[in-house]
Protein backbone atom coordinates (compact mmCIF):
# COMPACT_ATOMS: atom_id res chain seq x y z
CA UNK A 1 0.00 0.00 0.00
CA UNK A 2 1.04 3.57 -0.49
CA UNK A 3 -0.70 6.86 -0.07
CA UNK A 4 0.83 10.24 -0.80
CA UNK A 5 -0.16 13.23 1.34
CA UNK A 6 0.84 16.81 0.67
CA UNK A 7 1.07 18.73 3.93
CA UNK A 8 0.04 22.16 2.77
CA UNK A 9 -0.95 25.64 3.86
CA UNK A 10 -1.54 28.72 1.78
CA UNK A 11 0.41 30.80 4.23
CA UNK A 12 3.90 30.62 5.68
CA UNK A 13 4.61 30.43 9.39
CA UNK A 14 1.90 27.92 10.25
CA UNK A 15 4.44 25.32 11.37
CA UNK A 16 4.05 23.12 8.33
CA UNK A 17 7.46 21.47 8.45
CA UNK A 18 7.24 20.81 12.19
CA UNK A 19 3.82 19.29 11.51
CA UNK A 20 5.03 17.16 8.60
CA UNK A 21 7.81 15.59 10.64
CA UNK A 22 5.64 15.18 13.75
CA UNK A 23 2.81 13.56 11.79
CA UNK A 24 5.36 11.32 10.07
CA UNK A 25 6.87 10.19 13.35
CA UNK A 26 3.45 9.60 14.89
CA UNK A 27 2.38 7.56 11.85
CA UNK A 28 5.63 5.58 11.87
CA UNK A 29 4.32 3.49 14.79
CA UNK A 30 1.97 1.82 12.33
CA UNK A 31 3.40 2.51 8.91
CA UNK A 32 6.60 2.80 6.99
CA UNK A 33 6.78 6.56 6.40
CA UNK A 34 8.83 8.63 3.96
CA UNK A 35 9.01 12.41 4.36
CA UNK A 36 10.05 14.53 1.37
CA UNK A 37 10.93 18.22 1.39
CA UNK A 38 8.95 19.34 -1.65
CA UNK A 39 9.49 23.02 -0.85
CA UNK A 40 12.45 23.12 -3.20
CA UNK A 41 12.76 26.90 -3.18
CA UNK A 42 12.78 27.38 0.58
CA UNK A 43 13.78 24.03 2.02
CA UNK A 44 13.96 23.62 5.76
CA UNK A 45 13.11 20.00 6.50
CA UNK A 46 16.84 19.30 6.78
CA UNK A 47 17.10 21.66 9.76
CA UNK A 48 14.22 19.91 11.51
CA UNK A 49 15.61 16.43 11.00
CA UNK A 50 19.24 17.01 11.97
CA UNK A 51 20.34 16.78 8.34
CA UNK A 52 21.80 20.23 7.80
CA UNK A 53 25.07 18.68 6.62
CA UNK A 54 23.45 16.18 4.24
CA UNK A 55 25.68 15.98 1.19
CA UNK A 56 23.19 14.73 -1.37
CA UNK A 57 19.69 16.17 -1.41
CA UNK A 58 16.56 16.28 -3.54
CA UNK A 59 18.11 19.16 -5.49
CA UNK A 60 20.79 16.76 -6.80
CA UNK A 61 18.14 14.19 -7.70
CA UNK A 62 16.00 16.79 -9.48
CA UNK A 63 19.10 17.97 -11.36
CA UNK A 64 19.65 14.36 -12.45
CA UNK A 65 23.03 14.32 -10.68
CA UNK A 66 22.15 11.57 -8.20
CA UNK A 67 19.73 8.66 -7.85
CA UNK A 68 16.97 9.10 -5.29
CA UNK A 69 18.49 6.45 -2.98
CA UNK A 70 21.52 8.72 -2.52
CA UNK A 71 19.28 11.45 -1.09
CA UNK A 72 17.35 9.30 1.38
CA UNK A 73 18.37 9.18 5.03
CA UNK A 74 17.01 7.09 7.89
CA UNK A 75 16.32 9.40 10.80
CA UNK A 76 14.02 9.10 13.81
CA UNK A 77 12.28 6.04 12.41
CA UNK A 78 11.49 7.80 9.12
CA UNK A 79 12.94 7.80 5.66
CA UNK A 80 13.79 11.45 5.04
CA UNK A 81 14.47 13.06 1.67
CA UNK A 82 15.78 16.54 2.48
CA UNK A 83 16.19 19.34 -0.01
CA UNK A 84 19.17 21.67 -0.25
CA UNK A 85 19.01 25.40 0.35
CA UNK A 86 21.33 26.83 -2.30
CA UNK A 87 20.03 29.04 -5.04
CA UNK A 88 22.09 27.15 -7.63
CA UNK A 89 20.57 23.89 -6.45
CA UNK A 90 17.11 25.33 -6.92
CA UNK A 91 17.99 26.76 -10.32
CA UNK A 92 19.33 23.47 -11.63
CA UNK A 93 16.47 21.38 -10.30
CA UNK A 94 13.80 20.24 -12.73
CA UNK A 95 10.59 20.20 -10.71
CA UNK A 96 8.96 17.78 -13.15
CA UNK A 97 11.33 15.05 -11.97
CA UNK A 98 9.52 15.14 -8.61
CA UNK A 99 6.92 12.93 -10.21
CA UNK A 100 9.50 10.18 -10.89
CA UNK A 101 11.07 10.63 -7.48
CA UNK A 102 7.74 10.02 -5.78
CA UNK A 103 6.96 7.07 -8.03
CA UNK A 104 10.34 5.53 -7.11
CA UNK A 105 9.87 6.13 -3.38
CA UNK A 106 6.33 4.73 -3.54
CA UNK A 107 7.68 1.27 -4.29
CA UNK A 108 9.18 0.93 -0.88
CA UNK A 109 7.00 2.72 1.67
CA UNK A 110 3.44 2.91 3.05
CA UNK A 111 3.02 6.66 3.35
CA UNK A 112 4.74 9.57 1.65
CA UNK A 113 4.39 13.00 3.23
CA UNK A 114 5.30 15.95 1.00
CA UNK A 115 6.24 19.10 2.88
CA UNK A 116 4.77 21.56 0.37
CA UNK A 117 5.57 25.22 -0.34
CA UNK A 118 3.28 27.70 1.46
CA UNK A 119 2.20 29.31 -1.79
CA UNK A 120 0.07 28.78 -4.88
CA UNK A 121 1.76 31.26 -7.14
CA UNK A 122 3.87 29.02 -9.35
CA UNK A 123 3.79 25.67 -11.04
CA UNK A 124 6.57 24.39 -8.74
CA UNK A 125 4.64 25.47 -5.64
CA UNK A 126 1.46 23.70 -6.70
CA UNK A 127 3.02 20.52 -8.09
CA UNK A 128 3.20 18.61 -4.75
CA UNK A 129 -0.55 19.18 -4.26
CA UNK A 130 -1.22 17.92 -7.77
CA UNK A 131 0.92 14.83 -7.23
CA UNK A 132 -0.57 13.88 -3.87
CA UNK A 133 -3.57 11.61 -3.34
CA UNK A 134 -4.80 13.83 -0.52
CA UNK A 135 -3.78 16.97 1.34
CA UNK A 136 -3.52 17.72 5.03
CA UNK A 137 -4.21 21.43 5.47
CA UNK A 138 -2.27 23.10 8.28
CA UNK A 139 -4.10 26.12 9.66
CA UNK A 140 -3.75 28.62 12.42
CA UNK A 141 -7.10 29.77 13.81
CA UNK A 142 -6.79 33.17 12.11
CA UNK A 143 -8.75 34.72 9.25
CA UNK A 144 -5.83 34.85 6.76
CA UNK A 145 -4.69 31.30 7.49
CA UNK A 146 -8.20 29.90 7.09
CA UNK A 147 -8.92 31.83 3.90
CA UNK A 148 -5.58 30.77 2.41
CA UNK A 149 -6.31 27.19 3.51
CA UNK A 150 -9.61 27.37 1.62
CA UNK A 151 -7.71 28.40 -1.50
CA UNK A 152 -5.36 25.44 -1.11
CA UNK A 153 -8.32 23.09 -0.82
CA UNK A 154 -9.99 24.48 -3.94
CA UNK A 155 -6.77 24.16 -5.94
CA UNK A 156 -6.34 20.59 -4.68
CA UNK A 157 -9.87 19.45 -5.45
CA UNK A 158 -9.78 21.16 -8.86
CA UNK A 159 -6.71 19.04 -9.60
CA UNK A 160 -8.47 15.88 -8.37
CA UNK A 161 -6.64 15.66 -5.04
CA UNK A 162 -8.83 15.00 -2.00
CA UNK A 163 -8.70 16.50 1.49
CA UNK A 164 -7.64 14.15 4.31
CA UNK A 165 -8.19 16.64 7.08
CA UNK A 166 -7.30 19.86 8.85
CA UNK A 167 -4.62 20.36 11.42
CA UNK A 168 -4.95 23.46 13.59
CA UNK A 169 -1.52 24.49 14.78
CA UNK A 170 -0.06 27.07 17.18
CA UNK A 171 -3.41 27.30 18.97
CA UNK A 172 -3.32 29.69 21.91
CA UNK A 173 -5.21 29.05 25.11
CA UNK A 174 -7.29 32.19 24.61
CA UNK A 175 -8.65 30.75 21.36
CA UNK A 176 -11.83 28.74 21.72
CA UNK A 177 -10.74 26.26 19.12
CA UNK A 178 -13.79 23.98 19.35
CA UNK A 179 -16.17 26.58 17.93
CA UNK A 180 -13.68 27.73 15.31
CA UNK A 181 -12.87 24.22 14.14
CA UNK A 182 -16.53 23.26 14.02
CA UNK A 183 -17.35 26.28 11.86
CA UNK A 184 -14.25 25.79 9.71
CA UNK A 185 -15.18 22.18 8.98
CA UNK A 186 -18.37 23.35 7.27
CA UNK A 187 -16.28 24.66 4.41
CA UNK A 188 -13.67 21.93 4.13
CA UNK A 189 -13.99 18.45 2.70
CA UNK A 190 -12.12 16.82 5.57
CA UNK A 191 -12.41 16.68 9.37
CA UNK A 192 -10.23 18.37 11.96
CA UNK A 193 -7.54 15.83 12.81
CA UNK A 194 -6.28 17.67 15.88
CA UNK A 195 -5.63 21.08 17.41
CA UNK A 196 -1.98 21.46 18.35
CA UNK A 197 -1.29 24.02 21.07
CA UNK A 198 1.34 26.71 20.64
CA UNK A 199 4.40 25.23 22.22
CA UNK A 200 7.70 26.45 23.57
CA UNK A 201 8.88 22.83 23.19
CA UNK A 202 8.37 23.08 19.42
CA UNK A 203 10.56 26.18 19.25
CA UNK A 204 13.24 24.49 21.35
CA UNK A 205 13.13 21.41 19.15
CA UNK A 206 13.55 23.54 16.04
CA UNK A 207 16.54 25.32 17.55
CA UNK A 208 18.07 21.98 18.52
CA UNK A 209 17.55 20.61 14.99
CA UNK A 210 15.47 17.74 16.34
CA UNK A 211 11.87 16.75 15.62
CA UNK A 212 9.35 17.68 18.30
CA UNK A 213 8.41 14.06 18.93
CA UNK A 214 12.05 13.21 19.65
CA UNK A 215 12.74 16.33 21.68
CA UNK A 216 9.65 16.36 23.90
CA UNK A 217 7.58 13.26 23.13
CA UNK A 218 5.30 13.71 26.13
CA UNK A 219 4.45 17.40 25.67
CA UNK A 220 0.91 18.49 24.82
CA UNK A 221 1.79 19.39 21.24
CA UNK A 222 3.40 16.00 20.62
CA UNK A 223 0.34 14.29 22.06
CA UNK A 224 -1.89 16.31 19.72
CA UNK A 225 0.15 15.17 16.71
CA UNK A 226 -0.34 11.56 17.80
CA UNK A 227 -4.09 12.22 17.98
CA UNK A 228 -3.93 13.60 14.43
CA UNK A 229 -2.08 10.51 13.22
CA UNK A 230 -4.68 8.26 14.87
CA UNK A 231 -7.48 10.19 13.17
CA UNK A 232 -5.95 9.80 9.74
CA UNK A 233 -7.32 6.79 7.93
CA UNK A 234 -4.78 5.74 5.38
CA UNK A 235 -6.25 4.42 2.17
CA UNK A 236 -4.93 1.39 0.44
CA UNK A 237 -3.25 1.97 -2.85
CA UNK A 238 -0.59 0.02 -4.62
CA UNK A 239 2.79 1.27 -5.69
CA UNK A 240 1.68 0.60 -9.25
CA UNK A 241 -1.38 2.86 -8.79
CA UNK A 242 0.84 5.60 -7.49
CA UNK A 243 3.32 5.21 -10.30
CA UNK A 244 0.47 5.28 -12.83
CA UNK A 245 -0.90 8.38 -11.28
CA UNK A 246 2.41 10.15 -11.49
CA UNK A 247 3.17 9.03 -15.00
CA UNK A 248 -0.17 9.82 -16.55
CA UNK A 249 -1.88 13.14 -16.91
CA UNK A 250 -2.57 14.53 -13.47
CA UNK A 251 -5.37 16.82 -14.48
CA UNK A 252 -8.77 15.27 -15.09
CA UNK A 253 -10.05 15.39 -18.65
CA UNK A 254 -12.97 17.58 -17.65
CA UNK A 255 -10.62 20.53 -17.38
Amino acid sequence: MVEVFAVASGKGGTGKTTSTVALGMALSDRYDVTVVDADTGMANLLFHAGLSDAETTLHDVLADDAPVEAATYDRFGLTVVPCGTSLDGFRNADPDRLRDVIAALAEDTDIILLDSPPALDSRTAVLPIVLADRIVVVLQPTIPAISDGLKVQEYATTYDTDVAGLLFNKVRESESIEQVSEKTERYFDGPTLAAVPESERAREARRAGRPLLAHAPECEAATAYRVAAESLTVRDGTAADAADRFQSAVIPESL
Partner: protein
Amino acid sequence: MKLPRGRLDKSRVVTDPRDTLADVLDRELTGYAVFESQETLLLDGEGRGVITFTDGVPVLTYHTGTDRGGPPALADLAIPGPYHVSLYTLDAADLESAHEATDLRVPPGMPAERLGGDPALADSTRRAAPDERLSATDDDAAAAEDGTTEQSAVEAFLDDAEKIEAIKQQARSEARERAQQWEF
Protein backbone atom coordinates in the same frame (compact mmCIF):
# COMPACT_ATOMS: atom_id res chain seq x y z
CA MET B 1 -10.44 59.92 6.01
CA LYS B 2 -8.33 62.78 4.66
CA LEU B 3 -4.58 62.33 4.61
CA PRO B 4 -1.81 64.41 3.11
CA ARG B 5 -0.24 62.45 0.27
CA GLY B 6 3.19 62.10 1.85
CA ARG B 7 6.31 60.62 0.26
CA LEU B 8 5.98 57.31 -1.54
CA ASP B 9 8.27 54.86 0.25
CA LYS B 10 7.41 51.56 -1.45
CA SER B 11 4.88 50.29 -3.95
CA ARG B 12 4.69 46.59 -4.66
CA VAL B 13 2.57 43.47 -4.82
CA VAL B 14 2.72 41.35 -1.66
CA THR B 15 1.20 37.93 -1.18
CA ASP B 16 0.98 38.34 2.58
CA PRO B 17 0.06 41.64 4.28
CA ARG B 18 1.90 40.34 7.32
CA ASP B 19 5.18 41.14 5.59
CA THR B 20 4.17 44.77 5.13
CA LEU B 21 3.08 45.10 8.76
CA ALA B 22 6.33 43.50 9.97
CA ASP B 23 8.40 45.78 7.71
CA VAL B 24 6.58 48.91 8.91
CA LEU B 25 7.04 47.91 12.56
CA ASP B 26 10.67 47.05 11.98
CA ARG B 27 11.40 50.42 10.39
CA GLU B 28 9.17 52.32 12.85
CA LEU B 29 7.50 54.00 9.91
CA THR B 30 5.17 56.94 10.45
CA GLY B 31 2.70 57.37 7.60
CA TYR B 32 0.18 55.09 5.98
CA ALA B 33 -0.23 52.01 3.81
CA VAL B 34 -2.82 51.55 1.06
CA PHE B 35 -3.83 47.93 0.44
CA GLU B 36 -5.63 47.00 -2.73
CA SER B 37 -6.66 43.40 -3.16
CA GLN B 38 -5.94 41.90 -6.55
CA GLU B 39 -8.98 39.66 -6.13
CA THR B 40 -11.39 42.20 -7.45
CA LEU B 41 -14.10 39.64 -8.11
CA LEU B 42 -14.57 38.97 -4.43
CA LEU B 43 -17.23 40.61 -2.32
CA ASP B 44 -15.82 43.76 -0.78
CA GLY B 45 -12.87 43.29 -3.07
CA GLU B 46 -13.58 46.66 -4.62
CA GLY B 47 -11.94 49.57 -2.94
CA ARG B 48 -8.81 50.07 -0.92
CA GLY B 49 -7.93 49.67 2.71
CA VAL B 50 -5.86 52.29 4.45
CA ILE B 51 -3.90 51.81 7.67
CA THR B 52 -2.06 54.67 9.34
CA PHE B 53 0.98 54.14 11.55
CA THR B 54 2.89 56.07 14.16
CA ASP B 55 6.40 54.71 14.69
CA GLY B 56 5.41 51.44 13.04
CA VAL B 57 2.31 50.91 15.22
CA PRO B 58 -1.11 50.91 13.49
CA VAL B 59 -3.50 53.68 14.57
CA LEU B 60 -6.46 54.00 12.16
CA THR B 61 -8.01 51.82 9.47
CA TYR B 62 -10.49 52.74 6.79
CA HIS B 63 -11.91 50.93 3.75
CA THR B 64 -12.88 53.06 0.74
CA GLY B 65 -15.14 50.40 -0.78
CA THR B 66 -17.39 49.94 2.23
CA ASP B 67 -16.81 53.33 3.86
CA ARG B 68 -16.24 51.59 7.17
CA GLY B 69 -13.50 52.38 9.68
CA GLY B 70 -11.85 50.69 12.64
CA PRO B 71 -12.15 46.93 13.15
CA PRO B 72 -14.94 46.50 10.51
CA ALA B 73 -12.56 47.93 7.88
CA LEU B 74 -10.10 45.15 8.73
CA ALA B 75 -12.86 42.59 8.21
CA ASP B 76 -13.52 44.14 4.78
CA LEU B 77 -9.85 43.78 3.91
CA ALA B 78 -9.49 40.23 5.20
CA ILE B 79 -9.70 38.40 1.89
CA PRO B 80 -6.96 36.38 0.23
CA GLY B 81 -4.15 38.32 -1.42
CA PRO B 82 -2.13 39.17 -3.30
CA TYR B 83 -2.42 42.83 -2.49
CA HIS B 84 -0.91 45.81 -4.14
CA VAL B 85 0.55 47.85 -1.29
CA SER B 86 1.78 51.43 -1.38
CA LEU B 87 3.57 52.82 1.66
CA TYR B 88 3.79 56.56 2.26
CA THR B 89 5.78 58.34 4.95
CA LEU B 90 4.55 61.45 6.70
CA ASP B 91 5.67 63.64 9.56
CA ALA B 92 3.87 62.83 12.78
CA ALA B 93 2.42 66.37 12.80
CA ASP B 94 0.70 65.72 9.45
CA LEU B 95 -1.19 62.80 10.93
CA GLU B 96 -2.35 64.59 14.05
CA SER B 97 -5.68 65.85 12.75
CA ALA B 98 -6.49 62.56 10.99
CA HIS B 99 -5.70 60.67 14.17
CA GLU B 100 -8.39 62.65 16.02
CA ALA B 101 -10.99 60.44 14.28
CA THR B 102 -11.26 58.00 17.17
CA ASP B 103 -14.06 56.06 15.49
CA LEU B 104 -11.51 54.81 12.94
CA ARG B 105 -9.06 53.59 15.56
CA VAL B 106 -7.93 50.01 15.93
CA PRO B 107 -6.05 48.41 18.81
CA PRO B 108 -2.33 48.26 17.93
CA GLY B 109 -2.09 44.50 17.48
CA MET B 110 -5.34 43.99 15.57
CA PRO B 111 -4.09 44.42 11.97
CA ALA B 112 -1.33 41.86 12.62
CA GLU B 113 -3.93 39.45 14.02
CA ARG B 114 -6.66 39.89 11.44
CA LEU B 115 -4.80 40.82 8.27
CA GLY B 116 -1.46 39.22 8.99
CA GLY B 117 -2.78 36.22 10.92
CA ASP B 118 0.31 36.41 13.08
CA PRO B 119 -0.33 36.52 16.84
CA ALA B 120 3.41 36.78 17.54
CA LEU B 121 3.72 39.89 15.35
CA ALA B 122 0.66 41.28 17.16
CA ASP B 123 2.49 40.74 20.46
CA SER B 124 5.58 42.60 19.18
CA THR B 125 3.39 45.42 17.90
CA ARG B 126 1.70 45.77 21.27
CA ARG B 127 5.10 45.86 22.95
CA ALA B 128 6.13 48.71 20.65
CA ALA B 129 2.93 50.68 21.28
CA PRO B 130 2.91 53.56 23.78
CA ASP B 131 1.16 52.78 27.07
CA GLU B 132 -1.80 55.06 26.37
CA ARG B 133 -2.64 52.96 23.29
CA LEU B 134 -2.97 49.81 25.35
CA SER B 135 -6.33 49.62 27.03
CA ALA B 136 -6.85 47.14 29.83
CA THR B 137 -8.72 44.82 27.50
CA ASP B 138 -6.19 45.06 24.72
CA ASP B 139 -3.55 43.95 27.19
CA ASP B 140 -5.28 40.66 27.07
CA ALA B 141 -4.30 39.63 23.56
CA ALA B 142 -7.72 38.15 22.92
CA ALA B 143 -9.83 41.25 23.45
CA ALA B 144 -10.16 44.47 21.53
CA GLU B 145 -11.52 47.92 22.26
CA ASP B 146 -14.81 47.28 20.52
CA GLY B 147 -15.38 44.16 22.55
CA THR B 148 -14.71 41.95 19.53
CA THR B 149 -12.27 39.25 20.48
CA GLU B 150 -9.94 37.80 17.87
CA GLN B 151 -11.91 34.64 18.24
CA SER B 152 -15.25 36.23 17.54
CA ALA B 153 -13.68 37.98 14.51
CA VAL B 154 -12.64 34.59 13.15
CA GLU B 155 -16.10 33.21 13.90
CA ALA B 156 -17.78 36.20 12.25
CA PHE B 157 -15.65 35.52 9.17
CA LEU B 158 -16.70 31.86 9.24
CA ASP B 159 -20.37 32.84 9.59
CA ASP B 160 -20.18 34.80 6.34
CA ALA B 161 -20.98 31.87 4.05
CA GLU B 162 -21.39 34.12 1.03
CA LYS B 163 -17.93 35.60 1.36
CA ILE B 164 -16.38 32.18 1.85
CA GLU B 165 -18.19 30.77 -1.17
CA ALA B 166 -16.83 33.70 -3.18
CA ILE B 167 -13.28 32.94 -1.99
CA LYS B 168 -13.69 29.29 -2.95
CA GLN B 169 -15.18 30.06 -6.33
CA GLN B 170 -12.44 32.53 -7.13
CA ALA B 171 -9.80 29.94 -6.17
CA ARG B 172 -11.41 27.28 -8.36
CA SER B 173 -11.53 29.47 -11.42
CA GLU B 174 -7.94 30.57 -10.80
CA ALA B 175 -6.85 26.93 -10.45
CA ARG B 176 -8.54 25.98 -13.74
CA GLU B 177 -7.04 28.92 -15.56
CA ARG B 178 -3.56 28.16 -14.27
CA ALA B 179 -3.78 24.45 -15.08
CA GLN B 180 -3.64 25.41 -18.73
CA GLN B 181 -0.98 28.03 -18.24
CA TRP B 182 1.20 25.60 -16.26
CA GLU B 183 0.53 22.74 -18.66
CA PHE B 184 -0.30 20.19 -16.02
